[in-house]
């Protein structure tokens, strides 16, 4: 197995084995080619199915729980329509969009795929997604029972690019067990940012666990903050904030770090870099994490502590009901009608809704949502529904439009630049300038 000669003695070398210039050259040329060839794995993806039987490929990201629930819902569909079967592929969020782009480039995009507001504008504008507006108009995809804002949030340039599969909103999740242990009060919805930071500082002091993850790199926290200040992240596909807003935001958290409300920069980075299941509130490295309310069950699965969830600090009316994710249909699919029917089923069928629960967010169909709310047994799902319904009554009248193409790059630039500030390698002012420049470049704004 190992390419090592067994004998360790200094044998007289055979002349043939002596390195010669030509042999070395040949080896140097061939070795990278061989390595390169070995590195190219095969990705076999073949569609197919006769006219009668239909096999639909479907692709989503998520954790085990989501796979389990989605499997069950799709099995129910096959039970009702025995000619339709599914080729299911799922994976973690990290790398999902790389894979989806690669499949699309090869012309092998799945018939149905999950997508979110990071990429839906890009995919729609590039003509990858099927316009579902005609299906919605004809009732093949029934969005009559959806909240109107949720349908609108799936539209790009007037075309329905995806059907919302869940509704969520920002949620500040805290470790209640830890607070109770030290007889500390829980944070409350409507607290000002300053009060929240004071509260977190006190938690750090008393419980010896940092009160909160530093959210300066968390785009949805910045977004809420901007909306509370009469600004927004985007308006008409342009940035709707300026350097002064970002400077204030970075300064707010610089103050919090100096007061000891947040963990050390390396732990902040760890939190920014982690999947849902490793958020600091779960790993015990901070008492609060900045997430989306539908992520509660996944968080709960990874900790023994009791978790609570409230709105982000400040006026909760700045939050909005966001389509957490969508199912879109590939424009080039040969099984359009079947795919449309499946998406409609997943969004509107009461039994399917019951199976899927709140894993992707609150069910988009309000009838299904009410039914799920009445029958749900999972405690953290129940909590999600209660909190979201309660926050829903406080939402303001306007909700943002779908973020423009380049939004995902804006997010990564925020993380990079906010961390430069947390590590002390940049000032809030310099960071704000850098972020505005980078964000403009990302969305192609001149």
């Amino acid at each position: 197995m190992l390419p090592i000669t067994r004998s360790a003695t200094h044998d007289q070398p055979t002349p043939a084995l002596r390195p010669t210039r030509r042999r070395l050259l040949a080896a140097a040329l061939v070795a990278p080619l061989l390595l390169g060839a070995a590195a190219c794995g095969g990705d076999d993806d073949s569609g197919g199915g006769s006219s009668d039987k239909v096999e639909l490929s479907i692709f989503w990201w998520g954790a085990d729980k989501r796979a389990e629930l989605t499997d069950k819902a799709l099995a129910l569909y096959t039970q009702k329509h025995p000619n339709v079967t599914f080729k299911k592929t799922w994976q973690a969020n990290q790398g999902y969009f790389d894979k989806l782009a690669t499949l699309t480039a090869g012309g092998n995009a799945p018939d149905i795929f999950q997508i979110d507001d990071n990429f839906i504008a890009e995919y729609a504008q590039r003509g990858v997604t099927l316009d579902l507006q005609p299906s919605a108009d004809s009732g093949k995809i029934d969005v009559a029972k959806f909240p109107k804002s949720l349908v609108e949030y799936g539209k790009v340039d007037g075309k329905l690019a995806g059907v919302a599969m869940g509704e969520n909103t920002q949620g500040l999740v805290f470790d209640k067990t830890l607070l109770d242990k030290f007889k500390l009060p829980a944070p409350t919805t409507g607290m000002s940012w300053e009060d929240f930071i004071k509260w977190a500082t006190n938690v750090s002091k008393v419980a010896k666990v940092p009160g909160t993850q530093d959210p300066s790199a968390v785009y949805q926290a910045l977004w809420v903050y901007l909306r509370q200040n009469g600004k927004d992240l985007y308006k008409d596909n342009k940035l709707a904030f300026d350097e002064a807003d970002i400077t204030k935001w970075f300064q707010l958290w610089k103050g919090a770090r100096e007061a000891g409300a947040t963990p050390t920069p390396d732990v902040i980075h760890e939190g920014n870099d982690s999947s849902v299941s490793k958020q600091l509130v779960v790993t015990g490295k901070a008492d609060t994490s900045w997430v989306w309310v539908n992520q509660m069950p996944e968080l709960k699965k990874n900790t023994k502590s009791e978790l609570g969830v409230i709105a982000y600090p400040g006026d909760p009316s700045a939050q909005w009901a966001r389509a957490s994710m969508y199912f879109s249909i590939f424009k080039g699919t040969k099984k359009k009608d079947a795919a449309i029917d499946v998406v409609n089923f997943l969004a509107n069928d009461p039994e399917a809704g019951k199976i899927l629960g709140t894993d992707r967010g609150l069910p988009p169909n309000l009838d299904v949502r009410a039914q799920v709310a009445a029958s749900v047994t999972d405690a953290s799902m129940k909590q999600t529904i209660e909190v979201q319904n309660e926050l829903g009554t406080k939402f303001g009248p306007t909700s943002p439009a779908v973020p423009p193409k380049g939004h995902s790059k804006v997010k990564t630039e925020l993380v990079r630049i906010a961390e430069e500030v947390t590590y002390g390698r940049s000032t809030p002012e310099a960071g704000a300038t850098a972020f505005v420049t980078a964000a403009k470049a990302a969305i192609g704004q001149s």
Partner: protein
Amino acid sequence: MTMAQMPVRPTEPAPPVPAAHRRGRVARRRRREGLAGYVFLSPWLLGLLGITAIPMLLSLYLSFTDYSPLIPVTEANWIGLENYRRMFTADPQYWHAVRVTATFALIAVPLKLASALGVALLLNKTMRGISAFRGLFYLPSLLGGSVAVAIVWRSMFSGDGAVNSFLSLFGIKGEAWVNDPTWALPTLMLLAIWQFGAPMVIFLAGLKQVPVELYEAASVDGASPWRRFAHITLPMLSPVIFFNLVLETIHGFQGFTSAFVLSNGTGGPVDSTLMYTLRLYNAGFVELNMGYASAMAWVFLAVIGTITVVLFSTGRFWVHYSDSEER
């Protein structure tokens, strides 16, 4: 390809025939065998054309377009040198990635070769169980660029990982390693250096080729171990050192997997591990700017090609080949 033109010797002795006749037959036979050679090579040739050459040429074309993987190649717009202009003049992250990659290669490659040579010298002994030792030292390289090793590395070198637990036994408070912008790149280098098995095995094979009588003669003349190493081992080993240097330099510049895994694909914290290939990958597959990524790839190819040519041209000053007829 040059390999196909290598002379193939007939296995049976040719029957005695007149000389002119024989030449014709030999030529025919050569042709036939040449053809057979190409047939046997065809899997590799097809692979070279289909998997390497054609996509490479296509990517050269794409580097002058605004191609995104979401659209058909035919719909990409020709934008001339715009991608190259942006790369060199308008993308600070590009130059940052160049700096990170150069730092990585300049430090990690020499250290890796030095460790490989050092361990090879230690293992070039007659001793019970030496094969087992060689196997053990080679093991990290078998795991090679694997994702699993990088994941383990990431968890070992996190703020509360195994390394810091170990250091705390001695009362040392360790750094946050992969989560600290100062230490993330050194941690990545350490991983590369630790996987020195492949060059080590080649060094070991090279050491065995050094004629033992040279050492004997030197010892008789009273040469110290250091002089024996500097004046016999190193010169005799120089072709192997050269080979390893070229391969490891190319390899070092191309480092991707471990940087990707250690930083969760971002090159973070704050771009401290943003290797060139990682930036290229993110440009193509995350930002969906495949035309730009193609341009980056071609510049990269040109730079690595140049470095390799430079290495080869310096080789004549310090690489000694034992077979003089090749000169």
